[in-house]
């Protein structure tokens, strides 16, 4: 073989061997690399998954961490599962009372600035169904325990409340004190208790279209609050309130109608009468029992009531009839009847929905977003009538002096409310009350004219 050809063949063989070896080596490397890539890929996937799980665990843990929050409803401390909750809130009402007509006796009170309500509120829930509320009041220069009760929330249909709170008689009384549309409530509340101590079963049924309360209370003097009973007998109260269309979207969905009834025995003495003095909405007395008269037996009340809200408009009305056995002179026991009714109308001019609660401004005033809030116009008319028999008899036997106490008071009021936001509002009311009787020589008392203002903060 030609040496040149031999070298050529040998060279070709060597090149071929080298190339084959290199290819085999590359395949091993690739396989090894692929394995390493797979392992790295798995490690990366595991790390990513572990991060996911850690994130999930952190989110779960977050759910178990108690929270402290503050907002329009006050300051809250809540356990992670909401089983334990405490709220700290409060109401401050700075009012002014102006009486343009100073003619005595009605209107003779001095114009004044007052702190009407100064109420810190502490309330909470334990174990999801045990609630409590504590609310003293330092307004009007006095200290009164307004609300102090515990509540066992067995079910939406059955809550037991025990302590001091509003007995369920007057519908306007049941409006939250921070959410009254008028600076002072109307005449019917003269015939209903303010706060009383008792125990009450209440709840709502039929998809919340029917609510009820039944309870036993000490039985306080009308329009007042007390911390103990003065006799052994108790007052028995019941109320039902129906909103049959509330779950629909018809124009009747804001209609509520109900009735309350109370029966009890009130027992006073010559020196502690347990009888109420009736006030105008201007907070001045227009009916006072004669000295020596006192509650002496059964007392009954009946109170049909309703409200109706549609769009920006609302109406609230109620009637309270009251009968109380009263004694003045020895063996002169008689039945004292009084009745009162009123209708309130509301119009939220800025278009928010009217409801049993204050309107929620669409454009609230806030530090960063100074909206105008909501404006509401309100109007009311109410009448309280005392039965003529209260004025019958001699000066020593009659229950009231017709020359000092009126037989009827008729209140007409208008007002404007400016809700800056859910926590701050300003109110202006004008009320005029006309009277039958009560003046000297059988004349009528001079009409009361009252301008009331309120600046309120609540949280």
């Amino acid at each position, binding site marked *: 073989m030609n040496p040149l050809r031999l070298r050529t063949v040998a060279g070709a063989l060597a090149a071929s061997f080298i190339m084959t070896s290199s290819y085999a080596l590359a395949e091993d490397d690739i396989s090894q690399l692929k394995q390493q890539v797979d392992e790295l890929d*798995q490690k990366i*996937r*595991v790390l*990513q*998954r*572990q991060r996911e*799980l850690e994130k*999930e*665990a952190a989110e779960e843990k977050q759910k178990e961490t108690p929270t402290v929050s503050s907002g329009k409803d006050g300051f809250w401390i809540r356990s992670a*599962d909401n*089983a334990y909750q405490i709220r700290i809130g409060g109401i401050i009402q700075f009012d002014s009372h102006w009486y343009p007509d100073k003619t005595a006796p009605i209107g003779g009170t001095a114009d004044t600035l007052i702190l009407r309500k100064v109420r810190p509120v502490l309330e909470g829930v334990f*174990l*999801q169904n045990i609630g409590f509320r504590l609310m003293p009041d330092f307004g009007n220069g006095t200290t009164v325990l307004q609300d102090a009760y515990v509540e066992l929330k*067995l*079910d939406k249909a059955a809550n037991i409340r025990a302590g001091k709170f509003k007995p369920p008689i007057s519908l306007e009384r049941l409006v939250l004190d921070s959410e009254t549309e008028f600076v002072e409530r109307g005449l019917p509340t003269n015939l209903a208790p303010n706060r009383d101590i008792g125990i009450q079963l209440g709840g709502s049924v*039929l*998809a919340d*279209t*029917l609510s009820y309360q039944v309870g036993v209370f000490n039985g306080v003097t009308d329009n007042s609050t007390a911390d103990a009973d003065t006799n052994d007998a108790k007052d028995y109260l019941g109320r*039902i309130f*129906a909103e*049959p269309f509330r779950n629909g979207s018809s124009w009747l969905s804001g209609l509520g*109608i109900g*009735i309350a*009834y109370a029966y009890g025995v009130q027992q006073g003495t010559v020196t502690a009468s347990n009888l109420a003095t009736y006030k105008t909405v201007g907070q001045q007395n227009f009916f006072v029992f004669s000295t020596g008269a006192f509650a002496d037996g059964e007392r*009954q009340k*009946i109170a*049909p009531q309703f409200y109706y809200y549609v769009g920006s408009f609302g109406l609230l009305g109620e*009637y309270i*009839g009251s*009968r109380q056995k009263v004694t003045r002179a020895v063996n002169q026991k008689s*039945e004292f*009847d009084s*009745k009162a009714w009123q209708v309130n109308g509301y119009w939220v001019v800025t278009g928010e929905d009217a409801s049993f609660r204050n309107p929620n401004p669409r454009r609230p005033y806030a530090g960063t977003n100074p909206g105008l809030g909501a404006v509401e116009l309100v109007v009311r008319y109410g009448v309280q009538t005392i039965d003529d028999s209260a004025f019958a008899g001699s000066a020593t036997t009659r229950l009231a002096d017709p020359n000092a106490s009126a037989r009827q008071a008729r209140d007409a009021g208008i007002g404007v409310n400016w809700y800056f936001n859910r926590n701050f509002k300003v109110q202006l009311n004008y009320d005029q009350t006309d009277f039958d009787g009560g003046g000297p020589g059988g004349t009528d008392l001079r009409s009361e004219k009252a301008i009331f203002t309120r600046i309120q903060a609540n949280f």
Partner: protein
Amino acid sequence: MSSISRTLKHAAAVLFAVSEWGAFAANVELLNVSYDPTRELYQEFNAAFAKQWEAKTGDKVTIRQSHGGSGKQARTVIDGLTADVVTLALGYDIDEISARAKLLPAGWQKRLPHNSAPYTSTIVFLVRKGNPKHIKDWDDVAKPGISVITPNPKTSGGARWNYLAAWGYALKNYGNDEAKAREFVAKIYKNVPVLDSGARGSTTTFVERGIGDVLLAWENEAFLAVRELGPAKVDIVVPSISILTEPPVTLVDKVADKHGTRKVALAYLEYLYSEEGQDIAGRNFYRPTDAMIAAKYAAQFPRINLFRIDEVFGGWQKAQKAHFADGGVFDQIYQK
């Protein structure tokens, strides 16, 4: 007061009118707190029961579902989640609800047939398509280099069944030698790169995140994965021995009584034993306890040599205390 008397009469008329509303059909709501992989089963079952209940009583029933690791779910009920019924992965978790929260009597498991387990299942392996790591039995799962996906037995009922299935296999394979069984199970958990809190989480890890060579899975969960992914993605491998899992159901008496749902809740659980309930279980790859329905689905399920927890571990209380309690065997062998 004649005016008051008149008003009372009017009030009575209003009350009478109001009482007419009582004729409305009731809307009832139940909460079923269940374990991880039962979502699909109860979605179908709830719809069937609601339809049947409305036809029978006229009442509408809405059943809300809550799912998670069985142990974790039991703790949420103990902590106050108001379940009308619980349908958990294992009896021990319901025993805990009974013992700690006193929401149901201790003898709850005797109230319904088959120890309150309307369906059963077992533990199988889910592997990548073609079984590239040649995993055929528990021994393969314990080999070095095999990546095993199983949830955390501290929070997941399914994970406890997985663990006990492996332990039971080892005991049978090594002549009831507890030390060797412990060593065997330790090897498996050495191969576990990540512990999810529930079975559904582990399925996500294996199927969606692509992690691991084998998923220790409920049989129903494995079938579901194959159905969802298609047979081109994963294979089911049936081990030579596994454990018979009996997920129990029960009424949470105090909650149901408080909600006024005892009657409908009991009917709900009893309907699981009905022909339709059993059929739905079979369709969702649970093994029906009713012989007739079980026969219908017999071809669907592979034949496996199954052992019961009572036979090997003396029941859930003993197994829990020895293996899964704090400081138990699992804590000792799984140290990451």
